[in-house]
């Protein structure tokens, strides 16, 4: 019984990294918000530097997960990229000069 409870309470390494990603997303958001509210220029610069560092940490965790095959991403189709480019070029041409 004790063993079973211990098993249930243990997070896998994949789950630990997933949780880390969530935590990093959250703290990145708060630095982004606070950087915009700073009056003191040195404090704003510090908030932005830490914001950048938090993004680096998030990227490290993401890369780690990818290396273990725990986070797969789908590539966009080349055709879809071309379609989007064409659509945006058309919209830009329709703008009044």
């Amino acid at each position, binding site marked *: 019984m004790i063993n079973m409870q211990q098993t249930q309470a243990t*997070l896998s*390494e994949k789950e*630990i990294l997933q949780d880390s990603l969530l*935590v990093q997303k959250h703290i990145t958001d708060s630095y982004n918000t606070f950087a915009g509210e700073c009056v003191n220029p*040195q404090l704003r610069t510090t908030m932005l530097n830490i914001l950048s560092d938090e993004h680096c940490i998030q990227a490290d*965790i993401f890369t780690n997960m990818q290396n273990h095959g725990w986070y797969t991403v789908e590539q966009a189709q080349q055709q879809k990229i071309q379609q989007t480019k064409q659509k945006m070029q058309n919209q830009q041409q329709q703008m009044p000069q």
Partner: protein
Amino acid sequence: MANLTAKELTALEDQLNAELTLVKKYKHMASMCSDAQIQQCLNDIAQKHQQHFNTLMTFLQ
């Protein structure tokens, strides 16, 4: 004393609390891992959050 607005002080306190919690959390998570590479990664992250805490504290000097 540092020249801060009330909002900046609140932000600093929030972020200092968050960073301290993350130092503890990442160290704890590292201790739960058996994969040495993941363990190292999490300990490095804990160290970075400690540096953030130290940097933010300088604004309260």
